[in-house]
């Protein structure tokens, strides 16, 4: 599963880690995050994220 980087603050969403602080279980793909999920560090929405090139 692909990692995604926040264009605004540089936070990396790693599907292996999820975002447990905000109720997202480890193993959740970025595409499966709820539409109202926001960057846990700077609050912007999913549309501000870009796939990380490996």
């Amino acid at each position, binding site marked *: 599963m692909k990692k995604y980087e926040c264009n*605004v*603050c540089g936070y990396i969403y790693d599907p292996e880690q999820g975002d447990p*602080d905000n109720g997202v279980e480890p193993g959740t793909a970025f595409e499966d995050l709820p539409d109202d999920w926001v960057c846990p*560090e700077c609050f912007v929405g999913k549309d501000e994220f870009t796939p990380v090139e490996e």
Partner: protein
Amino acid sequence: MTRSLFPNIDWVGYVDWTVRDFHGYQTRRGSSYNSYLIRDTKNALVDTVKAPYACHLLKSVTELLPLAKLDYLVVNHAEPDHGGSVGAVVKACPQVTVVTNKKCQAILSGYHDTSNWNWQLVGTGDTLELGNRTLTFLETPMVHWPDSMMTYVSQDGLLFSMDGFGQHYASCHRFDDEEPIETVLAEAKTYYANIIMWAGKPIQRALEAASKLDIKMIAPSHGTIWRSHMDRILAAYQDWVVCKPSPKVLVVYDTMWESTAMMARAILEGASQPGITAKLLYIRAGDYTELATETLDAATIAVGSPTLNGGMMPVIGGGLTYLKGLRPICKAGFSFGSYGWSKGGAAAVQRELEETKFEILRDPLECQYRPTPEVLQECREAGKMLADKALALTCAVESKS
């Protein structure tokens, strides 16, 4: 007014003795907007001041350097308290090159007409040679906006730390050893709690990156410059980034006809156990700034409101909205409050505490009209529970470290 940090590195900022409201933050001791001038083969100004004080900045710079000789303006952060005078400086020094990162350039362009500006864009690890001195840039996003960065002068071990380590503190002095240090640290704590508490993880990353530098002096963008007590502010930040709990219980409340106040005092009485600091904050006698500061190191918190029109009191609602945005972590607590013919206040408070990710220790503690002796006894027991939980949380952290 200027003040030397090192030979040919001078503070040229503006001390704002009069500001008492910094976008809602009650700045009881005023503030300063710190700007620094480095004179070398090439000359650089690091950050500016809030727009109304641009003339003071330009006057201070001209005491040391003709404006036509300013080569670079380093902008570490575009927020108007630091970047507000960038336009005025560029207008007075059209030859100047604005040195900043891409995100900061975009934000500056949102606040100023930058169409004629000269730019040099930099990122982490990039350097700018001035002659005898070299500036190295370190991007520190979210400390305190996405554009934030720090600038390091390797020859002196000097870190321009932007909003990190700042304080809203007006003084005729510039350095930490010229001030009552406990007061400066208290203001640094208030600043951290009210401005950047929500950014604990980005700040941890910035601290880690900065720890690889040989730092002898930290010059923030507000308040006192750290040169003798760096160990104390760095240690404090290590605690604050994780909202390290201390054995402290905070009881916050608003009241209408004293019933919720009676409950608050009974909770405080129960929480006032050996080894515990218990504090009572009547929100209308204090303010949201104090609420955030007291929350930073409290382990447990009770928040009370009577019921007004089926919900909580607006002043408590505002305080909880403020706290939620600041994202205090690892807190436990509960809500309480009185009601008349219908409930609603304490439950509304609990919903906010849940959204702020507090561990909820019990159902809302409620009483109708006036608390009976039984209700007050329940309040004392709930206060004791807050104290016990505060000690447990504190011990858990101590045993981990």
